[in-house]
């Protein structure tokens, strides 16, 4: 998978919040095989230097870090948080979140497009967290985003893909853009679902971190992402609304074939 010119082997990205302990987090991230983890700048690394110990644990994982602007509600706040992240983590990558609605934590897509433009002009490589809306995704791409991350359903809801038709359209209309489904995935099958739709990767946190056994769940998601991707590449059979026997009926007795 290409992310702003960098080739990344794993198509699974995982968050670093909500685990029972850093030791469990580390084991889960290793089991997931993820090459990229997201870190919340405001919540986890508050003040940077103050969160040093946690940051050292993240660095010890030996994976790429994608800082995010989780919890930001305005363009100004998101841009300032992104700048802080670049300074703290030494990367131009930023997962851009601008929250528009407290209830659903739905992205404020207008603010998102504006903030993405500002950050891209400032040399950032922006990973915008957006809805499944095609025109918003197109605006983000026009602004210079080479990665777009639509939600499956609201953050932490675990509902899986709620608007399949729109996500399919997005994939069809933006074939050159790296598309990652971010947020709302609750079960490994949801991740496989997104990969079968042709998405380049998935990003999740709660489903693993809050599982009874986060390490086993991380592995389950890794397997699902691989299964979904291989399935997509192998070419899925189209669904039909009638049965087609897989064994030729010629040669079977008439009364069986007719049954």
């Amino acid at each position, binding site marked *: 998978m290409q992310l702003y010119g960098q080739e990344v082997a794993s198509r699974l990205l995982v968050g670093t919040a909500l685990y029972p*302990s*850093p030791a*469990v987090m580390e084991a889960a991230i290793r089991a997931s095989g993820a090459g990229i983890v997201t870190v919340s700048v405001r919540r*986890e690394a508050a003040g940077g230097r103050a*969160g040093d*110990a*946690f940051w050292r644990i993240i660095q010890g994982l030996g994976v790429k870090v994608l800082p995010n602007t989780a919890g930001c509600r305005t363009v100004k706040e998101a841009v300032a948080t992104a700048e802080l992240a670049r300074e703290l983590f030494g990367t131009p990558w930023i997962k851009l979140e601008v929250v528009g609605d407290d209830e659903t934590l739905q992205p404020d897509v207008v603010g998102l497009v504006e903030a993405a433009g500002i950050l891209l002009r400032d040399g950032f490589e922006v990973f915008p967290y957006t809805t499944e809306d095609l025109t918003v995704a197109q605006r983000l791409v026009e602004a210079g985003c080479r990665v777009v991350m639509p939600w499956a359903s609201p953050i932490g809801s675990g509902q899986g893909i709620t608007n399949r038709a729109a996500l399919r359209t997005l994939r069809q209309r933006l074939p050159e853009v790296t598309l990652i489904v971010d947020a709302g995935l609750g079960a490994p099958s949801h991740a496989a679902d997104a990969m079968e739709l042709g998405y380049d990767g998935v990003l999740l946190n709660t489903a693993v971190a*809050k599982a*009874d056994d986060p390490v086993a769940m991380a592995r389950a998601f890794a397997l699902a992402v691989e299964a979904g991707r291989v399935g997509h590449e192998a070419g899925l059979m189209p669904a039909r609304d009638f049965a087609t026997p897989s064994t030729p009926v010629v040669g079977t007795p008439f009364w069986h074939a007719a049954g």
Partner: protein
Amino acid sequence: MRNSDEAWARAGSQEVAVIGAGICGTWTALMLSEAGVPVALHERDGPDLMGSTSRWAGGMLAPGCESDGAEPVVIRLGRRSIDLWRRHLPETALLGSLVVSHPRDRGDLDRFARQTSGHRQVGESEIAELEPALAGRFRTGLFFPDEGHVEPRAVLPALHAELQRRGVPIRFGAAVDPAAAAGPLVDCRGLSARADLPELRGVKGETALVATDEVTLRRPVRLMHPRWPLYVVPRPGGRFLIGASTIESEDVSGVSVRSALELLTAAYTLHPAFGEARILELGTALRPAYPDHAPRIAVSGSKISVNGLYRHGFLLAPALGEVVANYVASGLRDNEVMRWS
């Protein structure tokens, strides 16, 4: 390992210095004294322990509630600690813990029920029986009957008085550097020992202490929160401790507005009368934690370090003190928490 055993055998009847009079050092000194080991307790602060994490603790004794993420050793030692609290301070409140959720966090409550043990489902009428103040406010909850709570600012002085009765000297205002000390010692300094324990880190916790006469709770009530275990713990005199945030930061500059909002909203969700309560204190402290959030007793020659009690200081301190005393007095080992170097 053998060197340490021999070092402690050689220490014989030498006085053991316990460093740190927070909950960990206090229980360790008490258990050593009870095991017949001569001991003195050293504390850099005054008797009010203003700089100690223990002063700001919730004082929950809730091994069942903690079993949703804690390592099994925490649950085992926690259960043992409750016996020790009961034996040493018979007035310890062991009335259980109640867990409820805002209707919209019901899914979190179901998951919590699945991931914890030692509880039973309670309905509206049983919640009203347990906590009349919450009658009609919550339709379902979980009750953990075998749990309790203590008031840190009452039990620490009580345990210190008990030590003094036993003839254990407590030297307040006496900072001791374990590296410079010659005799046998047990280092219970919490996060202050970090320079010697590279894996130890501080995890910020914030609390609010409020007072109101309009609500009465008998036991800690936990409210489901997407990120933190949030409790309202009754304290004597119509006071309630609301805690605590859990933030990966070592900043102790104060309680953030966002955290204060979340803590106070939790109390208000539990009972609207908290809206008229008075805020007495907003407190912040750093919990000492190892990466697995489990405690460790590290033995190196005649020095022992007890640390990493994380969110579980009052829950773990008695049992950890007992493990230390068993080792020092009888050479017994608990390989689940002890490490040798």
